[in-house]
């Protein structure tokens, strides 16, 4: 599903050039659950943004679902993104002015799905993340764990092939974190590919493979013995 070849990302300000990623070659197969780890500033988030088609690499190749996308325009990336990728953030990133239902519905609106079908899809995902009872509340009325469940619901409601999670448990206590990781695992088991940036060794346990980044380089890739049922 994902294959990068000598991926490079350089941030240029007026005087300083910072190399965030250097010759990154990774491959993520369909239905895989991959964790990306590394110290602060090693380029994890940059990599995730490029993989999520939010950003273009400075150099190198990136093939997403068999398409070479490294030179795509913003419009092309947006089109590919909305049908295939869901995002989960550390800080939840819910729109405060929209209710739970409306937040989750958002990606479906941009996909132009008719309202009846939307309602089914949103209700379905809210049931599965067990937040249905909070359907008409606003984000500020929810706990952190509940907010993250809403964020996950929004990420998966359009049934994307790939979920990118940037430290999804970073702002949660362990019980809530556990619950979010369980949801992600369940989604993976249902066939969704997941790439997750994390600091937490505990969370990385849920993944089948861990990619370690350091100063913009891939240093190791550990496969874990984990079996699909």
């Amino acid at each position, binding site marked *: 599903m994902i294959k990068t070849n000598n991926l490079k990302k350089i941030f240029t300000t007026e005087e300083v050039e910072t190399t965030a990623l250097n010759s990154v070659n990774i491959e993520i197969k369909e239905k895989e659950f991959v964790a990306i780890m590394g110290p602060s500033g090693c380029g994890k*988030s940059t990599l995730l*943004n490029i993989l*999520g088609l*939010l*950003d273009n690499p400075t150099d190198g190749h990136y093939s997403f679902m068999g398409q070479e996308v490294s030179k795509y325009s*913003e*419009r092309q990336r*947006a*089109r590919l*993104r*909305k*049908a295939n990728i869901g*995002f989960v*953030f550390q*800080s939840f*990133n*819910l*729109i*405060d*002015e*929209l209710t739970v239902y*409306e937040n989750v*519905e*958002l*990606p479906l*609106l*941009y*996909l*132009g799905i008719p*309202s009846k079908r*939307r309602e089914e899809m949103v209700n379905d995902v809210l049931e599965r993340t067990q937040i249905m009872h909070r359907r008409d509340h606003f984000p500020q009325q929810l706990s952190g764990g509940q907010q993250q469940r809403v964020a996950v619901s*929004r990420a998966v409601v*359009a049934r994307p092939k790939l979920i990118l999670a*940037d430290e999804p448990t970073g702002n949660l206590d362990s019980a809530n974190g556990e619950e979010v990781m369980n949801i992600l695992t369940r989604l993976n088991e249902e066939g969704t590919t997941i790439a997750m940036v994390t600091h937490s060794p505990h969370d990385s346990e849920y993944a089948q493979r861990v990619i370690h980044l350091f100063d913009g380089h891939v240093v190791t890739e550990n496969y874990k013995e984990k079996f699909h049922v």
Partner: protein
Amino acid sequence: MKFQILNNFLKIAIRNLLRNKLFSFISIAGFTVGLTVFIHLMTFVHNEMSYDSFHKNKDRIFRAVIYTPDDKEYYGNYPVALSIRMKESMPQIENAVNYLDKDLEIKVNGEFIKEKITFADPGFFKMFSFRTLAGNPYTFGNNPNGVFVTQAFAEKYFGSSNPLGKIISTKITERTIQKNIIRKNPKGEPVHSYKVEEKSYDFLIEGIVENPPDNTVMKFNVLVPFINAEKMSMRFNKEDISPGEFLPTFFVMLKKGTDKALLEAEFKSMVKPLIRNEAYKPELRLYPIEKIHFSTEIGPFSSIKPVSPLSVLVLSIIGIAILLIVSINYINLTISQSSHRFKEIGIRKVSGASRSEVVYQFIWESFFMILISMLISLLLSVLTLPVFNRITGKELTFSFGWGSIALAIILISAALSLLAGAYSAIVMSGLDPVKIFKGNQKLSGSGILAKIFVTTQFVLAIVLISGAIIVNSQYDFFMKADLGYNKDNVLLIRTNDMFGRMISDNLLWVYRNQALNLPGIRSASMSSMVLGGNGHIVAQLRFDYGSKFIPSYVINFNEEMIPAMGFKIIEGRNFSSAYSSDSLNSIIVNEEFVKEIGIRNPIGKHLKFSFINKKDVQIVGVVKNFHYMPLHEKILPVAIFKAGNRSSNECIYVKMSPRNMQKTVVQLKQTWEKLIPGQVFDYVFLDNKLADLYKNENRWKNIITYSSAVAIFFACMGLFGLVFYQAEKRTKEIGIRKVLGASTFSIIRSLVNEFLILIAIAIIIGCSVSYYFANKWLKNFAYHIDLNAWIFILAALLVTVIVISTILIIASRVASTNSAENLRYE
């Protein structure tokens, strides 16, 4: 765009509006007030632009105007000799109407009052689309004594009772030249003898007309068949053309498909046999009826008073400027508030929104808000229209159909939301979700566009402020100009009228002498000159000096007039009873007259007065130039004869002591009514009458001041917001500077410097624009203020002071705050 998404946008828009109440209030209030003023101005402009566009046959109706190529003048009053011949010999003319306004004394319900009477030919209602409420408009004129009155007139005099069949009578003094009686004056020269008869005419009200709308040049009260104009002593010359006559306006309606240029060409051969003077080469110009209102080149003896199209242009520009200012304010406000919405934009983008979808969202939000403002402002502008009408002295109404209102609302809202929403939409949609989520998204708000916005506002503020100063000073100039005489505490009593009443001069002198004995009366002078009569001064006549001839206005003063009214004799002497020749052939002339003759020592010089058989006259004095006409008009040569017992005295100028003036007026009235019963005591305070001449300028001044005040208020609000935003943005920088030891003063200076260059650019542009328009406007007046540098300096200074004081308030607040606090949140 799918409805669902719009619905989502709407939801967000409403919730954002409710969340950020101050922002919403400022934005909506700004647009609402701005749009209200805009609607008022546009109603005014629409009214001006739509003059006489309601006539069904407007494309075929023209006003006939005489153009004389040698002096490039257009004469709107049309010789009857010509209109008769045109009707006879031009088959292309389907309908022709002579139209003439006259203030006459009429008797309604047993009471004499002065009213404007309009004489018009029978085809009037076939040509113009005035609606009648009663009576058959097509029979107007069949009965020469049948008249039509307006609803307003009917209500004024008959209240709720039916006016149809009621009688209006007028009283006219008729003067007929007695051709067989030749009198001789003391010098043995023949003079005309008149038969003076007072006649009364009764008119029968046969129809009621809906009040003429504000947007017509024909604002009549009573329509009388034109044939009466002639009966009532307005003798029209039917044989040839003599310039300077008091003449009607002439309208023609051409047959369908007629080329007016052909008619204008045909006119040349038709007019030839009517001209006595070879040098006089009149041409015909046909003015489409819709253009008459703006035809300022037609003058000066026209009863229709056109206005300059410049006013419409300037008001449109002010209206648009106001919208521009509130839009710029909205843009700045949105941008400065936008950081609250970064997260939402980021989320929308990662949830699949394309950039254009984000753009749509923000434009839609602006549209929604502007629509709300628009609806409120519609209501507000209807409610405040009476106030605007009072300011403008107009009677504007909203007479647009619902369809066009809806269309205008949508179009204006759409245009405004593009104007106001597009910039922030583009800026916001370009935000990078990666940066947003990292928390280091910054707005590129200090870009070139933001600078253009600021400068535009400065420019508009300077133009409007200087414009308001100029218009107000010009009006002030009108009110305070040295007219060459003293207009204060003067009561002007209209006695006789060239075409109206004719009270015997003996009787007037008796009245004048009795008036002089009343307490509180300082003087009572007789004259044929009606000051403040808006161009109504006796026609120009000719004096010959050697081979030169001087066209001059001829008036008469009695000997008191000059000292009593404060006219200044600068050479020679005033009339005096000590010189018996004064009543025969002495004249006093104005400076302009002397300039026209071109001699050094005019006193004692003899001229021939062409009007009365080349009578010999002698200049005995020179009076300082005085404004007998409004200050729009240049002063021309004037010759003054001594008013004697046999001259036509049109006015008595009564100078009163300023105390108990009302009481004095009552006494004057009582004296009049005792001595001259049955004649209206027709009086006016001279200063009021003169102020009336500048009604147009007064209205103009009020509109400009009103709209400028609104615009300036919003521009200042915008400036305040902008400076505030700039200072806020630099809070961190200021904190660092302070930590590094910068003084508060140096920080303020750096903020001021940032704006100073923009102000400088704005001053140059603003002053040039304002100078250009002011110069054009002032050219309408023969006498006007000079465009002094101080006007522009004042405007520039005002704007600079507003900006700098705003900066000082904000900067001192920012600069004196604890810098550690500013930096802590980094």
